[in-house]
């Protein structure tokens, strides 16, 4: 059967999209991703609605996903008739009202103005895409995020959506796999296995049934690429699933997604409903011989379910515990049938690859790592958010040019989540690709980049990751279950000032055992944070052990809180927040802090810094050294 296309509907959608850009009414775009909501986008939306109602302004409100620079959220974009869309950052309901007042009066308020979305120069306002955070990015996967309404399939169609599946259905499956091979696409879940290879293995395994699973169980703490992508452009992921399912010959698919992402789940469900209406799911998709259906499976909170065999066990209704491989899921997976598990980002890369051709895609990136990669750039960096850069971009470019540099002195960047490692200054000029990060003792992982500055303790960070993996170890194999516990125990002792020199050898020995002896990727990579920290930041471990000093003043047992009498104005704010009555003193006189009563909760430190009058009268020190 020859597949029909959606061209008529697409033409309508394009007309609608152009109509929106040329609307005679003001159009207001609000970033309503989870990060926007966390920053208060709900208030801005309510305030904007109330404002429009009160002034009887006829305007259209479009809710979009996250455009990436989360530190600018909540973002309110306003497009006045005949003018480009202007983006206003860090809005509140009151600021939104003020901004709208000015815009409706024909002015262009410059306060909070982050840029415009037009092509040409507009009134001296920079283009949004020229924002320092955006200008070094290449947005292929994130092309629609923050631009379109994720709940409106016409927006996706108008931007070229579902053309790639139309094209795929006109090709034999072998050709689709070949194009993916030529694009050089590697699995974005972390391991970086060539996507086409496992597809071919699956397709060539005889079976009457094959399955496709989209792995959206984004478990790495500090990483949110998949959440943001699904929230902002769910159809891109689902179109990718269609292409993958067609290539491997799967008629059933699952999206396995974390329950912690309620908004992403809702967006997926609404996108699936829209696809069904368009004949993009179900029997004979677009009139072809290809039939496919998708079910959303909510995870129930287990990090190990990101591992493919554990994920399969979880879908089958069992405890999410991994098993030995081979057989690989591509041969024997869900209910014993050949199954492909692809990461959200891998799938979302497929539509642009098929639509624009593999050579175009392979034009980005390095010799071994083609295309682009999204990263969540977070931690102690000035501009936080979601970014997309070609492979081969250096860490320095990402952290300094895109991220605006660390908030204080750079110490390290943590890549690869609990399976990765901390890389120090000497790696800043390393081009990011799978091989380089592995050679440095870390991994690409799913794409979390957490910047750490001098106020973050390396030993504490290693302990944090190990406690995480210990908590999340499923308990099936001994090296992981028992080994991670012992690693945490040793790190606890070092952080508490009870460490001894021999502990460093113990850590390294044990780490090798856990790495070599564990059943699945969770245990095999769990020691990476310790090993890389020991390798590059051994000095900090030694300080904790020999001098009982934590230079970042993080490890509680090694620090004291002190009031600097010369700086204390006696405002009593710290007295009010201290939960144990450790701080006393008459008003207007320098206060007194009783170290025996102090539980080091940090409340006083925060309130002191917050108060412009008292300033930095409270310090946290470790062994006489000013650290904060």
């Amino acid at each position, binding site marked *: 059967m020859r597949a029909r296309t959606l061209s008529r509907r697409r033409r309508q959608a394009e007309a609608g999209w152009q109509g929106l850009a040329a609307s005679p009414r003001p159009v207001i775009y609000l970033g309503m991703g*989870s*990060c926007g909501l*966390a*920053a*208060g986008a*709900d208030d801005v939306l309510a305030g904007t609605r109330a404002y429009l109602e009160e002034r009887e302004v006829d305007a259209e409100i479009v809710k979009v996903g996250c455009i990436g620079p*989360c*530190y600018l*959220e909540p973002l309110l974009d306003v497009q006045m008739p005949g003018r480009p869309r202007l983006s206003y950052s860090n809005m509140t309901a009151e600021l939104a009202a003020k901004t709208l007042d000015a815009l409706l009066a024909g002015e262009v308020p410059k306060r909070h103005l982050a840029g415009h979305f037009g092509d040409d120069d507009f009134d001296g306002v920079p283009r949004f895409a020229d924002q320092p955070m955006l200008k070094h990015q290449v947005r292929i996967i994130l092309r629609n995020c923050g631009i379109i309404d994720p709940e409106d399939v016409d927006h996706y169609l108008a931007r070229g959506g579902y053309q790639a599946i139309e094209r795929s259905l006109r090709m034999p499956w072998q050709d689709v796999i070949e194009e993916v091979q030529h694009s050089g696409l590697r699995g974005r879940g972390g391991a970086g296995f060539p996507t086409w290879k496992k597809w071919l293995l699956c397709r060539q395994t005889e079976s009457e049934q094959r399955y496709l699973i989209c792995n959206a169980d*984004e*478990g*790495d*703490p*500090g*990483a*949110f690429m998949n*959440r*943001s992508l699904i929230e902002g452009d769910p159809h891109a992921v689902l179109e990718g699933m269609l292409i993958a399912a067609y290539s491997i010959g799967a008629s059933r698919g699952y999206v396995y997604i974390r*329950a*912690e992402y309620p908004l992403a789940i809702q967006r997926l469900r609404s996108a699936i409903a829209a696809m069904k209406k368009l004949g993009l799911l179900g029997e004979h998709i677009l009139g072809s011989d290809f039939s496919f259906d998708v079910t959303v*499976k*909510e*995870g*129930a*909170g*287990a*990090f190990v379910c990101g591992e493919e065999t554990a994920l399969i066990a*979880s*879908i*089958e*209704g*069992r*405890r*999410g515990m991994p098993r030995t491989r081979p057989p690989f899921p591509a041969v024997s997976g869900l209910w014993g049938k050949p199954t492909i598990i692809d990461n959200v980002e891998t799938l979302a890369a497929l539509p642009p690859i098929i639509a624009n051709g593999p050579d175009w895609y392979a034009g980005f990136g390095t010799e071994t790592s083609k295309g682009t990669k999204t990263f*969540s*750039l*977070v*931690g*102690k960096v000035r501009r*936080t958010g*979601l970014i997309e850069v070609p492979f081969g971009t250096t860490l320095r470019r990402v952290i300094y040019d895109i991220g605006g540099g660390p908030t204080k002195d750079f110490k390290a960047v943590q890549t690869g*989540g609990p399976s990765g490692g901390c890389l120090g200054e000497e790696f800043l000029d390393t081009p990011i690709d799978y091989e380089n990060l592995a050679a440095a003792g870390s991994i690409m992982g799913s794409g*979390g980049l*957490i910047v*750490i500055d001098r106020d*973050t303790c390396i030993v504490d*960070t290693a302990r*944090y*990751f190990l406690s*995480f993996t210990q*908590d*999340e170890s*499923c308990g099936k194999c001994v090296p992981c279950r028992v080994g991670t516990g012992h690693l945490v125990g040793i790190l606890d002792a070092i952080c508490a000032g009870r460490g001894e020199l021999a502990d460093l050898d113990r850590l390294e020995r044990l780490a090798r055992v856990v790495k070599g002896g564990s059943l699945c990727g969770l245990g095999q990579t769990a020691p990476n944070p310790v090993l890389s920290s020991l390798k590059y930041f051994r000095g900090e471990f030694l300080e904790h052990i020999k001098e009982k000093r934590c230079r970042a003043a993080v490890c509680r047992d090694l620090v004291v809180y002190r009031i600097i009498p010369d700086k204390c104005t006696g405002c009593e704010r710290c007295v009010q*927040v201290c*939960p144990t009555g450790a701080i006393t003193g008459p008003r207007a006189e320098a206060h007194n802090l009783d170290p025996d009563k102090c539980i080091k*909760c*940090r*409340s006083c430190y*925060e309130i002191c810094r*917050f108060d412009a009058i008292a300033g930095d009268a409270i310090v946290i020190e470790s062994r006489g050294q000013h650290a904060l």
Partner: protein
Amino acid sequence: MAAVTRPQPELDDLPASSPPIDPWAQIVQGFDGNRSDLVPVLQRAQSLLGYLPPDAVRRVARWLRLSESEVFGVATFYAQFRFTPPGRHRLRVCLGTACHVKGGVQMLETLERRLGVGTGETTADGEYGLERVVCLGCCALAPVMTLDEAIYGQMSVLKLQGILDARTHT
């Protein structure tokens, strides 16, 4: 421990807001009774009952023709399932990596002190349940916490005290 055990509601004793149909029917509605329905059915039961009382585990087991220990084994494997009644309001503090390096643990400790409960417990009046989660995926706005459906980003002890004060004074 300040946690309390409130009388456990039976399956038939659902919140008044739910539609007047047999709650059990509502829990299994749309499922075929396959093994793979186990986790989704438990999720539905928990969303309707607030937690998984022993009776729910028993009935799910019978419905899927599995042993109770098998069902309980699956339920306890996943962090999402709880076996004690939740508080009326759900406080979740994120301790993902970004929140960890930005001081999320202070939010948790402040809440523990203010509410007089440990993490994973419910206040004596049943008002608040305090949980820690590993990553809500709003890392760019760390530290993050949620109160019921509302997400709060860029938290500080001060901001948290403000939120708590506003709630206790109303």
